[in-house]
């Protein structure tokens, strides 16, 4: 392979913690920074990445057609009109799960690696075949979790599996962070989660209703002009991923109201 492509697995164990949303936003942000980026939907059972990117009507071929030699790779790639550095390779249909092997995924990611600087692989939930297939396509990983018991527990299982592969580095993104709840200690803190999982922290993403609104529109937040808490976080994660030395967003500085300030006071260590 001529290029030093970074192929990154976006995984979590538990479903619904924000893998696909992170993949879409990170994909746009990386592409916007000038890196050619492919996002590969490895969730063959329940594909969603096309919807989040607003590309669902432009899919003609899938990864399956490429493997079957029904079409060439560049025919299956769906370029994003507003962000030409970004392309989506859709997954095949659910039947594909039956015959898909890790080698097939590896083949696809090798083909993508010849053309792109970044390949982000949106992983299905669980630790079964779909996850193992996606794993075979990647060199590094981002584990997404929420500051909640079940999400952290499942992340720990995934990390256990990743540790037995030669994936490196494995970094952590904590999504759906609520500064108020953390301040009142009704939510596991960033330090708690990171300490327990003991992975390097790539970033956090704040809980933000704009995420839902942007999903409705099929435009990831990083593609839009407005300011929003989650957008700021996704951009921060993207910068840190490309090696820019910016500090991780600290939830303690995010709440601005008087109530937040009071909560912060209550967090002061007395002894």
């Amino acid at each position, binding site marked *: 392979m001529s290029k030093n492509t970074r192929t990154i697995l976006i995984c979590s164990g538990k479903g619904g913690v924000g893998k696909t949303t992170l993949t879409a936003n990170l994909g746009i942000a990386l592409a916007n920074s000038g890196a050619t980026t492919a996002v590969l939907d490895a969730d063959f059972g329940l594909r969603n990445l096309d919807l989040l990117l607003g590309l669902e009507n432009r899919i003609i071929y899938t990864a399956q057609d490429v493997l079957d030699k029904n079409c060439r790779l560049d025919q299956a790639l769906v370029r994003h009109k507003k962000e030409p550095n970004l392309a989506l390779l859709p997954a095949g249909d659910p039947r594909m799960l039956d015959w898909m092997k890790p080698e097939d995924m590896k083949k696809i990611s090798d083909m993508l690696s010849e053309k792109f600087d970044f390949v982000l692989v949106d992983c299905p939930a669980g630790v079964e075949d779909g996850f193992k297939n996606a794993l075979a396509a990647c060199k590094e990983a981002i584990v997404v979790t929420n500051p909640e018991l079940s999400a952290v*527990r499942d992340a720990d299982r995934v990390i256990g599996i990743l540790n037995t592969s030669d994936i490196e580095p494995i970094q952590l993104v904590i999504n759906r962070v609520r500064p108020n709840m953390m301040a009142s200690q009704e939510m596991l803190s960033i330090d708690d989660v990171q300490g327990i999982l003991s992975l390097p922290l790539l970033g956090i993403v704040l809980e933000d209703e704009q995420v839902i609104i942007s999903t409705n529109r099929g435009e990831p937040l990083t593609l839009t002009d407005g300011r929003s808490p989650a957008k700021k976080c996704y951009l921060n994660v993207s910068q840190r991923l490309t090696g820019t030395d910016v500090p991780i967003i600290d939830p303690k500085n995010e709440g601005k109201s008087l109530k937040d300030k009071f909560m912060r006071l209550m967090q002061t260590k007395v002894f």
Partner: protein
Amino acid sequence: MTLRDLINKLLGRETASANTARERLQLVLAHDRVDMSSLTTDLLDKMRKEILDVVAKYVEIDFEEVAVSLETEDRMTALVANLPIKRTVSGEIKFKNNNEKNDKDIKK
């Protein structure tokens, strides 16, 4: 302890749920991590050998009776080593048929 914890304590209120979450998580993970066959028989064999090497420096062990295993009870997993000692290396006979028990917690 934070200001909030202090006030809660003075008022006799329950502590914040994040503490409970942290404690429950640590327990359940200690269990999961061992369960997860992360400690394969291979690893256990290797560990057994290294433990014996260390202990054998100081005491003479009855190798035929040695047992090293993982035992799980109430969400806690312990590494249990049963190493019958014949004599210390200096020659003094310490135990005849008594077994020395060695319990260690496992941390991955």
